[in-house]
């Protein structure tokens, strides 16, 4: 797929996203609405004292509470001031993080951009506020919240200029991002998760912020089965690490085993804390991935 800058049909800049991509987005938007219809409203609900109509809970009155929420019947019965709580319908923000470290390389980064843009488009289509951030060893760039479908082009432009660079330190990036007192929402992290500081450490930051998390693990076929043999010098894309090594079938087999274990570790972490995890290969059509995400119910649920 071409990553050259193109213009959409209405003449706006589409970034790396070509016409084909835009058509797929429209299709995804329609499909996602259909998937979500009958199950959920476009908005998520938060339990709080508010102006909603659905009763949620009782709690005791404390000075400063709105007298209109006092349950006078309960007061008559119990001689205590008790507040009725209603679920107030409110939209939850979507935070999409794209890993732009050197380990991603152009291929995984492009794939990640498409997935990010597609999820953002689906979110905007459902009237969510979408925050977009690019990170490596910290937050490289951040796009303020976008609210309307027409603002998707801001996201395209934002993503279009992202190049792979720097080492990975997702924990530091998340810590800095959520240090700015963000509202609770859903966090989508699109990355290869090759983080020398530990993926769990980064996810812990998200977990401590009580955010929901969807981890989209992007790998290339070479990541899982390296096309190597014989005498090679392995060079890390991010660091100066290098190692002379003789690649043998046995060694490759061991690598594949380790790779699977590594992915399983991340998935186990997500499962343990109720987070979503999806692994995809760059060869896999991104629109199918989005559909899988939609079906999984982890996104916009």
């Amino acid at each position, binding site marked *: 797929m071409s990553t050259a800058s193109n213009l959409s049909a209405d003449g706006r800049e589409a970034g790396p996203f070509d016409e084909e991509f835009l058509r797929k987005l429209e299709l995804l938007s329609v499909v996602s609405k259909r998937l979500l219809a009958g199950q959920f409203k476009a908005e998520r609900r938060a339990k709080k004292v508010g102006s909603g109509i659905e009763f949620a809970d009782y709690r005791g009155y404390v000075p400063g509470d709105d007298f209109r929420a006092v349950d006078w019947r309960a007061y008559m019965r119990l001689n205590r001031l008790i507040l009725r709580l209603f679920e107030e319908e409110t939209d939850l923000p979507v935070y999409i993080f794209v890993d732009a470290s050197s*380990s*991603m*390389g152009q291929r*995984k980064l492009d794939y990640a951009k498409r997935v990010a843009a597609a999820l953002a488009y689906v979110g905007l289509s459902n009237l969510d506020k979408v925050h977009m951030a690019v990170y490596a060893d910290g937050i490289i760039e951040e796009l303020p919240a976008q609210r309307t479908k027409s603002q998707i082009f801001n996201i395209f432009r934002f993503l279009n200029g992202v190049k792979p660079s720097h080492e*990975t330190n997702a924990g530091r990036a998340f810590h800095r991002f959520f240090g700015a007192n963000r509202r609770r929402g859903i966090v989508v992290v699109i990355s*290869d998760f*090759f*983080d*020398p500081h530990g993926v769990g450490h980064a996810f812990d930051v998200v977990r401590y912020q009580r955010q929901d998390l969807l981890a989209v693990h992007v790998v*290339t076929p070479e*990541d899982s089965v*390296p096309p*190597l043999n*014989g*005498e*090679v*010098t*392995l*060079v*890390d*894309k*991010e*660091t100066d*690490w290098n*190692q*002379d*090594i003789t690649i043998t079938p046995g*060694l490759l087999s*061991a*690598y594949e085993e*380790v*790779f699977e274990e*590594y992915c399983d570790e991340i998935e186990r972490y997500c499962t343990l804390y109720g987070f979503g995890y999806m692994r995809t290969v760059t060869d896999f059509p991104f629109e199918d991935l989005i559909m899988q995400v939609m079906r999984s119910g982890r996104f916009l649920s």
Partner: protein
Amino acid sequence: MTFLGLSQTMGWLLAAGTATAILVIFFLRIQHRRALVSSSILWERVLERKKRRSLIEWLRRLLSLLIALAIGLALALAFGEVELGRAGREPRDVRLVVDNRPTMAALMSDGRSRLDHAMDRAGELLAGGSSADRFTVYDAAGIVVAAATRDRDAVREVLAEMRPTARSLVLPLAEDGSETWLLTDGVGAAEVPADVRVVGLYEPVVNAGVTAFEIRPQPTDPYRYEAFLEVGNFSIDARAVTITLRDGAGVQFRRVVDLEPGGLYRNTFDLGPLDGGELRAEAAVEGDGYALDDRAHVWLPRTAPVRLAYVSVARGLESLLRSVPHLELSVIDPSEYASPAAEDPFDAYLFEGWAPPESPSRPVVLLGPPPVDWLPAHLGVAEAVGVFPFDTAAPLLRHVDLHDVAIARARVVDPLDAAILAGDADLPLILSGLRPTRWLVFNFAIADTDLAQSVGFPILVSNLVEWLRGDAPARSVNLGTVAIDLPGASVRDLSTGSAVDARTVGGRTVFRADAPALYLATDGTRRMHYAVRLDGSERSMVNASIFESPDAQLESPAAARSLWPLLLGVAAVLLLAEGLTYHRRITV
């Protein structure tokens, strides 16, 4: 220059060929292709896993684990003070009975005494025992000299202090759960219980010794002495024994006699020509290995008549004094008394009712003296003195009863540090002192009492003369701890002239005498000689052992050995090996 016999051309060709081969090998070396990988995380894990799974690495880790286990085990055992031969055994209660009777001072063939060897064997027992074992040390008399303790150093210190002075061998009563070791030469140890383990330390020794040396007044003249000497050969074969009798002036008698084993030489010597002082008998034999019975001492009292100056106006005692034997009496009127010059013609003075302004240099007795500066200060006069206490143990009052004596008039003096023989501190009637000369004061006049009419008065006068003579035969005491009835006395060894460390315990002066010698004890008023020697029953027993040979009675001590130093050493070596072979990667 040639190389391996090659010509110069061949040499250059060889060099060029070698260089070419090196270059070819250099360029044929394995070339590594660069391969960019997304991350080293996975590859590092792969390499680590591969390393872990390699046989050599597995063996190396196994070796390291075994070494670590060995180190831990060695340290645990070391800190637990594990000992060889102790496994499953309760701590022992060991009682060491060290025979320290005088025969243990006999020398063995290596020149060291039986007691020294006993100490060595006791040391082996201490070292061989478990650290949890408790040791109690008894001397031959059955006295606990080291109470049950695990402190071996304390036991060794006690052992080092032991001397061959015990009088008898008394084994402690058997106790359940304890083991008793007797370290002895077997002399007089015929009845050793079966449960006592005996470490024998006997070797036959050449010995001749003085078994008896006594003096006594001759029946015809109490002031003429004779000595009885008995010397025996206690070696296991016949020996020529040299017998010597000497006094301060030198050798008085010497004779070499051939004595069979157990043979005795007895002789009686007339000591009439000798006038007091130390006498020493010696028995010598070549190779004598037991020195404690080689000599004996006696103290010969002075036998010459006492020259007494009786200075008195009344002269009431003149006739009585003239009847006392061995007394040369000179009666002097006080007006004719003159302070003696350097050559004092008298051995003692008796002043009656009068006292010189200055003290004579000789012993002096004063009967009812007037106040003078060198005597206790006069405080007044007491009338009609009735019953008063008196010291019946004092030599002066021996066999004299003063209970019925009435005194019409007596002087009251301040006794200060003088010894009160009769009366009390408020009214000292008879008292004595040593400064400025040896003096004895009766604080009443003979005429003011009925003392002269009492039956004991002649004995008192006789005792008085003996007191003035100031001499008596030495009392015989045994080796070891000597206790004498002179509290607070100072003791001097006359053989060496040095003072002896003595202390007063329970009203008696106690000092230690480890070898035969003559001691002089003085308490301010009295002087007593003490001849320290072996008890007569022990003098001939040095070879009377129940053991026949030195090898037959040896028993090995327990074999438990403390292993903690070895284990700590092993742990240190293993730690070093671990550090060098694993962490320094010498093995890889």
